């Protein structure tokens, strides 16, 4: 409706300014927004493209100026060469173990705590919840030094597997998060009480109610928390940098950073390694794109 009325009005106004775009729009066989979006997208994608191109060049071509934009031969051997000089498969496995364990423990522990904060009346609930919320505001840099000392102590005196230089050190401190508890509590509070109450009347335990009735209703929130926790864990760098020094316990970002430090001028190997560490994440990301996008959008909209 607006499309038909606008040109007529512009015609009446006859100021030319309104007529021109209308005419141009008719002449272009495509939306003029492509003229903006296509170059912008090419710029956004160029770093990815250059990464892949370099990973397939010979060292001589990579260290050539002007740069060789289209390699003459594709040197796929860069990939096995990179794998031979650092255990990227191992880094990947470590990252996966840490991310999956962190996601699972967050789902369990934050569901339990979030549900209790949402539904139970117990002594100290309000105060405890307020304290947990307060920790949300504190940046990691404030807690990282004591966290390092505690982790070191735990490894020596309690359980080696959660100490410095073990994967457990990357899982345990993030096994439950204030954000996860807050996020699930907020969601649980929006659920109707009736189902839970009638199940309780029928004699179901609180845990059974949570598992059988509440969690199935909370699948979208659980998926969102899982996606965000996974991304956080997968990309985490500062804590692994502090907690891990031995190569076979490194996660992908740390392994990649260490590899970069050791092979600074071997750009082809470095890029091949970078592609290999990126591809799994890109695959997961695009496989579950809708979840990731919705999760990020959800935190944004929740924040507003």
């Amino acid at each position: 409706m607006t499309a038909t009325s606008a040109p007529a009005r512009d015609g009446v106004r006859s100021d030319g300014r309104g007529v021109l775009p209308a005419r141009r729009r008719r002449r272009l066989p495509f939306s003029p927004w492509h003229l903006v979006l296509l170059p912008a997208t090419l710029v956004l994608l160029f770093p990815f493209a250059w990464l892949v191109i370099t990973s397939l060049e010979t060292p001589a071509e990579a260290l050539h100026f002007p740069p060789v934009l289209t390699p003459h031969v594709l040197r796929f051997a860069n990939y096995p060469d990179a794998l031979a000089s650092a255990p990227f498969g191992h880094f990947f496995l470590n990252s996966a173990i840490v991310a999956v364990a962190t996601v699972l423990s967050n789902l369990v522990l934050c569901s339990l705590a979030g549900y209790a904060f949402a539904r139970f009346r117990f002594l100290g609930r309000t105060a405890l919840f307020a304290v947990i919320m307060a920790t949300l505001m504190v940046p990691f840099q404030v807690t990282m030094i004591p966290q390092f000392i505690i982790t070191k102590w735990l490894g020596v005196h309690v359980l080696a597997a959660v100490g410095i230089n073990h994967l457990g050190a990357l899982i345990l401190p993030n096994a439950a998060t204030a954000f996860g508890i807050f996020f699930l509590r907020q969601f649980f509070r929006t659920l109707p009480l009736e189902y839970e109450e009638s199940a309780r009347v029928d004699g179901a335990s609180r845990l059974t109610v949570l598992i059988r009735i509440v969690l199935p209703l909370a699948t979208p929130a659980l998926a969102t928390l899982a996606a965000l926790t996974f991304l956080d864990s997968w990309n985490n760098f500062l804590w692994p940098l502090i907690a891990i020094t031995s190569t076979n316990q490194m996660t992908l970002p740390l392994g990649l950073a260490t590899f970069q430090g050791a092979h600074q001028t071997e750009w082809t190997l470095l890029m091949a390694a970078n592609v290999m560490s990126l591809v799994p994440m890109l695959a997961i990301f695009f496989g579950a794109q809708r979840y990731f996008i919705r999760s990020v959008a959800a935190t944004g909209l929740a924040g507003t």
Partner: protein
Amino acid sequence: MIGSEHLAGWAFVTPGVAIIALFGMAPIIWSALMSFQRNNLLSPSTPFTGLANYRQMVHDPIVAQAIQHTLIYTALFVPGTMALGLFLAVAMNRKIRFIAFYRTAAYATMAISTISEAIVFIWLFDPSYGVVNYFFSWIGVPPQQFLNSPSQALYVIVLMTIWGWTGFAVVIYLAALQGIPQPLLEAAAIDGAGPWRTFRRITLPLLSPASLFLAVWLTINAMQLFDEVYLSTQGGPLNATTVLVYYLYNQAFQDFNFGYASAIAYFLFLVIIVVTVIQFRVGRRYTYYRS
């Protein structure tokens, strides 16, 4: 029955809360105490030294530089990311051909880790073999030193992080744009408002909650910049890219000055709180909530 609810409540929260207490709450208090101690791991005792660590900060020229770099970085990165995100989201908020491709390209930057991102950009901006210097030669600009130059390095880091956060900003703005009721925009068009006026008077105010969220979120992240600096410049050249968290990390885990590093951490915390409060105060005046 009442007793059982107390018991159940504590039974449910204890596992999660224990972890947060051990790795979240206790460290907050501990590092506050440490910031008043001389604690450098090499000496066995950790005596309280009052405000000595904080006084040392005031006289530390590198801290002053680090604050300056952190603020410059934040002042460029946050508006830059928001402007680019808003522009792309508005352009992508329509049903045209290839739109899924355009959106996916923007989202892809979200899947790349800070480490991968930094490595790619170090290579793109390599002074000797980098493709950016090659593009510069097309338009007659002489080769630049980029990350090796004290006057340019911080700006290259601004560019790489803006690129890395583009997808995030686009997602937030697209979600907010899609929440704007279509009749509102049509009504504005019928009333004779052009596209630019509609954008300024209707779209932008309706996006203001998303803008406030992004401003706060990006600022908090910007002031904690570390990964890219660690990887690309290690704070150099000549401390030109030493930001607060990088200096803090060096003090803590290279020099093992836990006391001094804790003081810097608390200072950073304070700055983040102050800036966030200001943003909410100022933002509230310009933020329009529909509900």
